[in-house]
Structures are given as C-alpha cells and as structure tokens.
C-alpha cells in the first residue's frame, strides 16, 4: 500500500498524463497537409482544444471558423464525448503495443457539410458571430456523465443537482482549465465518504469489438469483504480470466497495464484511476487484437 504522499503524486501524474498529437488538415489547393502539434491531456476532451486548433488552421481556410469540425483516425470519425485518453487506448494503443506505430497520434481534422452525424454528436450551438460554440455542448455532455456517475455512487443525482451555481461554474472551469485542486474541491461534494458509497461506476471497453460494458460495482460483498479488480474481471469477462495458462488478453487503465494491481481492492483502483467524469474506464485488449 502506498503512502498518502505517494498516492497524491500518482493522482497528480494521472491527472497530468498527456499525449502528443499531430493534427493534419488537408489543403484545398492540393498542397501538403498543414500540421498542428498539441500535447493534450488524457483526462480531457477534444472540444476543449478545438478553438485553439481552429485559430491556427483558419489562416489556411477561413470557412473552418463557422463549420463544426471533427477529427478522424484512419478515416474513422472520433467520438469526442469520450475522454481523450480513453479514445487513444481504444483506437491506437494496440498499434503501439504491436510496434506498428509510435506513441504520438496522427489525426485528421475535417470540416464540411457532411458532418458524420450518424457517428459523432453534432455541435449545434453557435455564438453571436456565427462561430461554433464547442464548449456549451461539451459541458452538457460532461454534466450528464457526472450525473450518471453521481447516481451510481450515491443512489441518486441530488449531490450534483444541488450544487450551487457558483460551484457548478467552478467545476466546469476546473475541467476546462484542467485545474486539479479546484476540481477536487467541488468534486468532493459529489462523492460521499467511503462507507456511504452505494456502487462504483465502471465502464469496460474492448477495442475492435462493439462491446461496452456498463458495470455498477458494489465495492464490498454481502459479507463485507472488499471486491477486487480481479473479481470484477472474472464476473464481466470470464474468458479473459479463465484458468487456462494461455494469456488471452491484457488490461489497461489510463494506458497503463494494470495486471500487477489485479488483486487490489476495486474501491482503491477506482479512487486512484477514475476520470474526471468519475467513471473508471477499463480497456481490455484481447490477443486477437494484440500480440501480447
């Protein structure tokens, strides 16, 4: 068990974990694509970066300011409503593990009348100058995620619904500016003390498949024993955890292989690794999709 100082340091590192991303925009004049390099926080969302990306690219194409943009990875439109780190682990992690690509992520910026509304949530809000307001919809989406996790943890959404306007604004500003201290000050009003936890909100993704598992987890058994990360995986992914000696998959959280902490209590794993929407995202790479 780590000391509290070590835990604070780990939480700090996870909060500030980031990814190098090269964003390409094709040129209307058939010149080489224009590039924009950013270091994006894993525990953040792409629309937060869109204004600065657009501010750079509009020197090459002014239309970009008034048209909703989206990002693509290998022609697949990216669902901006998931944390950047989760998207990276879902779409890119297996390529890195197989040494097919390096850790930087190359994405293409798109904007046209053919926004992929069937796959990506469209941005429908605009500002007075007709430019797209990315923050407003992102805020709605994150607040809904927070309501959902709050419901799972508390058995109702009252703690977040009862936040004052000032606290709500401060929470959103902390998310937008990626301020951990400020975020924690408000988030602790949503999360109760441990013994009042009802369930833990966990989502399990399997890259390469259409599987998403929404797992509300009781942190303790009926007899009061702590539930371990391993128990959750045995329950939800029995194939992964079979006693067969052949390794069938690997488990990642925040891009980190977490097999060494598989026997840790799920409540500790959740508390350490939860994202800013208070969900624990577990990514499972099955061997079919990786060479591990």
């Amino acid at each position, binding site marked *: 068990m780590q000391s509290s100082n070590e835990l604070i340091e780990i939480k700090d590192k996870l909060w500030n974990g980031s990814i190098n991303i090269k964003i390409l925009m094709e040129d209307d004049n058939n010149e080489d694509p224009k590039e924009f390099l950013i270091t994006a926080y894993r525990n953040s969302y792409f629309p937060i970066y869109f204004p600065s990306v657009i501010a750079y690219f509009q020197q090459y194409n002014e239309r970009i300011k008034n048209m909703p943009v989206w990002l693509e990875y290998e022609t697949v439109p990216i669902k901006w409503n998931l944390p950047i780190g989760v998207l990276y682990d879902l779409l890119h992690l297996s390529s890195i593990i197989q040494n097919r690509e390096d850790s930087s992520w190359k994405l293409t910026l798109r904007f046209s009348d053919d926004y992929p509304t069937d796959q990506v949530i469209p941005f429908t809000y605009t500002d007075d100058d007709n430019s797209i307001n990315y923050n407003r919809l992102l805020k*709605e989406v994150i607040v809904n995620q927070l309501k959902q996790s709050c419901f799972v943890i508390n058995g109702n959404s009252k703690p977040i619904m009862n936040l004052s306007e000032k606290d709500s604004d401060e929470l959103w500003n902390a998310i937008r500016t990626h301020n951990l201290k400020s975020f924690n000050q408000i988030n602790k009003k949503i999360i109760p003390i441990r013994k009042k936890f009802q369930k833990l909100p966990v989502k399990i993704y399997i890259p390469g498949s259409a*599987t998403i598992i*929404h797992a509300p987890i009781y942190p303790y058994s009926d007899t009061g024993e702590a539930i371990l990360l391993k128990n959750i995986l045995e329950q*939800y992914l029995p194939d992964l955890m079979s006693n067969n000696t052949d390794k069938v998959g690997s488990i990642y959280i925040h891009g980190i292989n977490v097999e060494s902490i598989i026997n840790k209590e799920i409540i500790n794993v959740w508390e350490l690794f939860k994202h800013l929407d208070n969900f624990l995202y577990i990514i499972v790479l099955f061997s079919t999709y990786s060479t591990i």
Partner: protein
Amino acid sequence: MIKDGRITNCQFNDHIDEFNELLLQNLRLVTSNSNSEISDANFDIINNYKKELNLNTKIQKKIYMLTRICISGFSLPTSLLVDFTISYDDFYMVPVLYFRVFQDSSRSIGGNIDEAGVTPITSTEELISNYYSVLNLNDDLNLGPTITLDSHHLIYDSSVWFYIHPCETLRTLKEFMEADNILFTCDSEQAQVLKYLCIWYATYGLGGIFPSISLRLSLQV
C-alpha cells in the same frame, strides 16, 4: 414481484416480449388537434425487432428492442421516421429510451424507404419547429433539459441518438408504483412489470416526449 417500485434487468428481460406485443397492438397516433390537415397523418410501424447482445459475461444478458415508425401526411413537410430503442440501464436501474428521427423526403409508406432521401434531424429545435403539430408538442417547448444527444449505451457503432436523461426516472416511477390502486397483490409478476412499463412509456418513453404517439391500451393489462 416488483420490489421498491422498480423492476430489475432480469424482470425487464423476462417480460419485454409481452410489452413489445402490447406496443405493436396498441401504439396509436392520437392528435388532439382538430385541424383537419393534421388528422390526415398516417402512422405505420415499419420495423420491430429484439436484439440480444452476446457479451459472454456472468451477469444478466443485455437486450434492446428496436422499433421504427413512420408518420406521413400531406400536411407534413416530409414523412417522419422515428427509430426508438427500449433497453435497461444498469447504472440508473430503469428502462431507457433512445430515439433517432429522420426526415424522409421520399414519402415512403409501408417500409419502402429510399435511403438517399432520408436525412437525420439532429436538433430538438428543428424537430419542434417542423413537426410540433403532429407530435402534439408546443412550438415554444424547450426539450433541451430533458433530451440530449448521446452515444447509445448498447449500440456502440451507430452512436448518435436522442436520449431522455433518466436521473429522475427511478424516483418518479417508484412514486407511481407505490401509489394506491396501481399494483394488486393478486397481480402476477408479468402483470406488474407490464403496468410498470406502460407507466414508464407514458412518462419517460416515447409517449412522454411525443404525446401523440400514444400507447392506447384496448385491453386491461
């Protein structure tokens, strides 16, 4: 039997077929507007199926029921296709509705749809401004707080759906179910779950959002 005014995922799975039968037999377009142009609207169920997800877990299986309805009529700018799914949300412990709406300019009837003429409606404002009459909506209604666009919780690869946010559903349905005269001790579990789902449909299902697409039961549950 229903406990604490809520149904479980298991009860949902066990009785969704019976509820679906009720839907197919009793879903009606009931416009309260006396406007004769509105009353010419036709209503068809053009698709309905159950999908069971193969998650291979030790937990309860996940099921959703998908239905496509078509509302057409000369008074409407185009035919309106509404896809909706009914499924059970493990986080909120209630049934949830996801729906998508499409304008069908090919004015298809009876399932013959030219996909090239189908365009999605992605804002509630657009939906309200064009179809408020036939859906019995107020033209100044703000659906924003209750309906948001989101990824479907069970259908990952077709992601964008309107979603009725269910953070109040558990509490509201519990109040309804625990009110007098709703459940009888002699009711079977099936009858209790069907009553629950009918009330859910009218409050947080399609009928709760579009009052004209109503579940008019001709038989007592």
